């Protein structure tokens, strides 16, 4: 039973609503980067990463307030408009930090650290378009600082940037800071996503030359060689990741299950799949740069989460700093008063702790945890 098609209707285009200008494009820094030559590398180990963590923590600066404003060509750069994210509904500490960083850039438009710092702050708060724009300028003004290239690569990828540019940014970052295996690890991830598997495998191997104990790079290499069809090699790399601490990591176990499946080892595959289903451990990426970005988020939610982690680690002074930020936004939240009380009690200030805990109990009269801590501190004071 056949039916012939009806005649197509006359073609007419619906008129779309008026639209504004296209989003701004990334600058073409990558093209110049690709001409700059090779990547120097040194071998290293875990000690190196720990050292780098320390270096990044010490070197990292917020927008440089002491850097004197300059005039001249850089300041007159026509296309360097300073991004202004919509801060209307943000919490006061977030808005304040962003506006301060923005003003710093406006006052010092030729300062790479100022642009980079503003970009980092935008990045920390999920404002990626702002971050990309700022990091791009930072790489131009401060081309010796690997962080701007590294962060630009990372954020560009989140925004669907060109793989060629992302690779160029990571490559330049690794040239400027050849001791950080995480750069090669991230490069491997980006290349994997772009389907450039052979290059991705090489990037992971470079990360492992610097730090042979880097479990995430072994895992990444295993996943890439599996995608290339080499299940045998995949099992080797993934097993190495397991030996280095990934035994509770679902991603590693799931990849291992697939590798064994491809090899025809169904029983082993099923065993790994079962383990993956019940596993929940993260496999840490030793990334001092991204860690610092995360720490720059001053929203109440993030500050409270950091405060909890710091309290658990016994770092009460640092926790208090975070809780003061939370308090600016959530002055009547019982958990904030409770945590401040806990910190003050551990810092030997029971009187102040008592005030806070009493306020917490007032706000949450049925909370047993608050009540018990209040009684404990009262007991301390009485004794």
């Amino acid at each position: 039973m056949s039916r012939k098609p009806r005649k197509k209707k006359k073609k007419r285009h619906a008129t779309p609503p008026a639209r504004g200008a296209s989003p701004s494009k990334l600058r073409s820094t990558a093209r110049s980067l690709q001409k700059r030559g090779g990547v120097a590398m040194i071998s290293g180990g875990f000690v190196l990463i720990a050292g780098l963590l320390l270096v990044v923590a010490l070197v990292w600066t917020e927008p440089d307030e002491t850097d004197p404003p300059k005039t001249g060509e850089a300041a007159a750069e026509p296309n360097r408009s300073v991004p202004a994210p919509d801060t209307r509904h943000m919490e006061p500490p977030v808005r304040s930090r962003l506006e301060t960083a923005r003003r710093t850039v406006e006052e010092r438009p030729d300062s790479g650290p100022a642009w980079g710092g503003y970009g980092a702050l935008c990045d920390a708060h999920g404002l990626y378009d702002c971050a990309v724009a700022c990091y791009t300028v930072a790489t131009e003004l401060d081309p010796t600082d690997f962080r701007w290239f590294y962060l630009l690569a990372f954020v560009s990828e989140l925004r669907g940037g060109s793989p060629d540019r992302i690779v160029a940014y990571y490559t330049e970052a690794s040239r400027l800071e050849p001791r950080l295996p995480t750069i090669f690890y991230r490069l491997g991830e980006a290349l994997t996503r772009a389907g450039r598997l052979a290059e991705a495998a090489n990037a992971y191997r470079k990360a492992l030359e610097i730090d042979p104990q880097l479990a995430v790079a072994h895992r990444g290499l295993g996943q890439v060689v599996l995608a290339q069809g080499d299940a045998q090699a995949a099992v080797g790399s993934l097993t190495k990741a397991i030996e280095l601490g990934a035994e509770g990591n679902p991603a590693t176990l799931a990849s291992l299950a697939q590798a064994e499946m491809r090899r025809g080892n169904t029983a082993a595959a099923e065993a790994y799949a079962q383990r993956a289903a019940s596993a929940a451990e993260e496999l840490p990426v030793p990334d001092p740069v991204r860690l610092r970005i995360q720490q720059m988020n001053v929203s109440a939610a993030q500050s409270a989460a950091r405060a909890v982690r710091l309290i658990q680690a016994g770092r009460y002074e640092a926790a208090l700093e975070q809780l003061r930020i939370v308090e600016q936004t959530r002055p009547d939240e019982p958990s904030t008063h409770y945590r401040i009380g806990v910190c003050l009690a551990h810092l030997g200030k029971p009187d102040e702790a008592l005030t806070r805990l009493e306020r917490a109990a007032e706000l949450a009269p049925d909370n047993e945890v608050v009540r018990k801590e209040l009684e404990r501190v009262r007991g301390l004071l009485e004794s």
Partner: protein
Amino acid sequence: MLQRLITTSCLLAAVLGCAANVDSQHEAWLVDVTADVGLDFTYRTGATGELHMPEIMGGGVAFIDYDGDGDPDVYATNGNASPAKPARGGEIGDRLFRNDDGRFTDVTSETGLGDTGYGMGVAVADFDGDGDADLYVSNFGEDRLYRNDGGRFVDFTADSGIVAPGWSASAVWCDYDLDGALDLYVTRYVDYSAEKRCRDPASRPAYCGPLEFPPVSDLLFRNLGSGRFEDVSTSSGIASVRAAGLGVVCEDLDDDGWPDFYVANDAYANQLWLNRRDGTFVDRAVLLGAAFNIHGEPEAGMGVVAADFDNDLRSDLFVTHLAAETNTYYRNVGAGKGFADATGEVGLAVSSMALTGFGTVAFDVDFDGDLDLAVVNGRVKRTDPRPDSWVDEPWSWFAEPNLFYVNESGALFRGGAAATAPFTDPVEISRGLTLGDYDGDGDQDLLAANIESPLRVYRNDAPKEGRWVVLRLSDPGANREAIGARVTVLAGDLRQRRTMTRGSSYLSSRDASLHIGIGAAASADVTVTWPDGKRETFNAVPADGETTLIRGTGTPSS
């Protein structure tokens, strides 16, 4: 005759080296004809500014030939004035539009429809085998089953035994137990609480994500054949997993002749429910490489399509995801070894990283013999408004353009073609997307649902690279459209396999027809593997027309 002449002209042009090229400067391949066809519908959320999660998740669309006149009509779900808690009633309701020669008329009232639940998805099928298409509507709140009685619908939910409270998303009809009657799989999202408030990383009020709420298990209803359904969620094993289900397809993914289910979950591992042929299922997604992406990470699964993109006669999977994740293409490796994330290799990764994908369809837009891919987008996480947004605040915080990929043979995709701009340009919050030939010209058109902006019809005007067949299946049993049948089309050097299905994408349901490009061949040999495994071959199915393959009229084959 005119169509045949046009097609012949195209073929001649191709021979002369002037073959249609997606980058050439000709007319748009997909044309927004919404205003021209009289479809005037906008999905209303009832938003009050409190940012309740259901507001940002709906709705769905369906092509359904409810009146049996041979052209697909349109059903669209709608929100409700109460996005905080499930409620029914009020002014906002779902709509049905009748297709009269390519123009649509709102026939909601006269057909007894207009569901006023907080609408999510829609699944179409003739569940009672009486020859007309019925409707299942999923809601934030109780779902509804509407039985079509000769063009007028009755709410059959209570009589059917289907009870689906909570928050349902995509649903699919499929005869999983091969008893001849269509069963129903319903994904369910989360146990939502309106009291929960969330903020984005920049501390601005934002919609919550699924991990803020308890996950729930999906539902499976077995059709008992008498209009009654039995909830077999627990006995089948489906209820053993709790996740945040959004998309679902029913497809024989391990080539054992029995339908399986693949579920795209938001922020949880996806499930590949392999049919154990005894009424039960076992989740093998992790083992078979379809649970996570290439990095072994769960992603925010929204829409899903199962189709043979690389023409190796195996069904691959494509799942849409959140921004900062890629959409993911799982290549079917075959030989029982499951799937491999080949997203980057086939060119689908980078372009999707900045966007949040929902509805997705696979179809051969230009009849060149392979499946192309359309994806509609729209954020769930707040961002600064795009300057090119087509919607005003607050919806501009979530608006994004769409994606269209041309398959350049063997599943190597290329996006960004100027000719597809009318589809990819709208910067809106799109959700449901489906396929149907509304104008009866042989190629498939697109229908997209948008939050707080008009539903859009995109007419397929792509220059055709070859001839084509449109196939419908007719089975005298209860599964009259032969949902689940596999069709292999052989024409010249081209060999393609398609599955007859109505359910895929996100919250949406497509027309029950197969539109297949066959190159220069004047006819195609078609082998149908009916849902029960029996095979028939239909030789010399003529090109450039629609053919209904009636079971029992072909040549039995092994």
